[in-house]
């Protein structure tokens, strides 16, 4: 494998990005954005995770195959969420009686 050596400057920049995002997420939590609060929090978390995965974990410089497997892992998680939640969201729909 052609080993890609990432220079420390990149790591430091990424770390800077992570720190900024972290401050942002804490600050945003103190504003009342209603339903947007969790959305913002999660978006920031996803961005942070992306930075870590892509740079600290070298995925940006690695093979397609690795990328596919990384994506797969997260995608399967989404499958789980998206198929469990409908049960809880739609359970009440049928009580007291079906709408049709």
């Amino acid at each position: 494998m052609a080993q890609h050596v990432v220079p420390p400057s990149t790591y430091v920049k990424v770390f800077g990005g992570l720190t900024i995002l972290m401050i942002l997420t804490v600050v945003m939590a103190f504003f009342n954005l209603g339903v947007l609060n969790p959305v913002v929090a999660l978006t920031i978390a996803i961005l942070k995770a992306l930075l870590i995965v892509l740079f600290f974990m070298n995925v940006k410089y690695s093979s397609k195959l690795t990328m596919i497997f990384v994506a797969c892992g997260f995608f399967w998680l989404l499958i789980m969420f998206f198929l469990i939640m409908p049960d809880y969201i739609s359970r009440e729909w049928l009580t007291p009686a079906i709408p049709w």
Partner: protein
Amino acid sequence: MSHSSDSLVAHHFEDIEQQNESAVLGMWLFLGQEIMFFGGLFAVYLVYRFKYPDAWAAGSTDLDITLGTFNTVVLLVSSLTMAMGVWSAQTGRQKSLIRYLLATLVLGSTFLVVKFFEYKHKWDYHHVPGPSFSFQSEHFPNAAESNVQLFYTLYFIMTGMHALHMVIGAGLLIWLIVLAWKGKFGPHNFMKVELTGFYWHFVDIVWVFLFPLLYLINRHH
């Protein structure tokens, strides 16, 4: 065959490249497994947060945000030092490798110590689920005590599972430090450092999600 004399390549691989690629792929598959492992907990979290938003807000606002933020910083820095450790190994900087690994280990331990004090605080305030659990919230009168207890159960299991992974990571770091001290790593032989790095960063990512999900609900109250 010529390469069999090369002690770095295990007998069943053709060359070092094949061996390294296999190791990287194997590690990613393992991390995929880890994603699903924590994923089960996140799914539980999602369902109950959806069902009991008030209890979740009540429990969350009662967590210590200062310690939580501090720990987040600690972990992020430890990821940086870990990455620098890998870089030192790749570029053959023996001394700096040991230093970075040590730094990572110290940061990881700091995290665990802080976590310990958070747990202790919960214990003192009867926020540990069980018969003596008690919880009153001024801001969220709608939060039923039993549901807040559910939040805390989940809090302890999620952070506990995360802490367990940290402990394993710390063990791996100690092992690496010993190997590094014996001079086992170099520009052609740093897979163990790199893979441990993957693991460490992964544990960091889990925290990146745990932090907002557990500590930052409805802070504006």
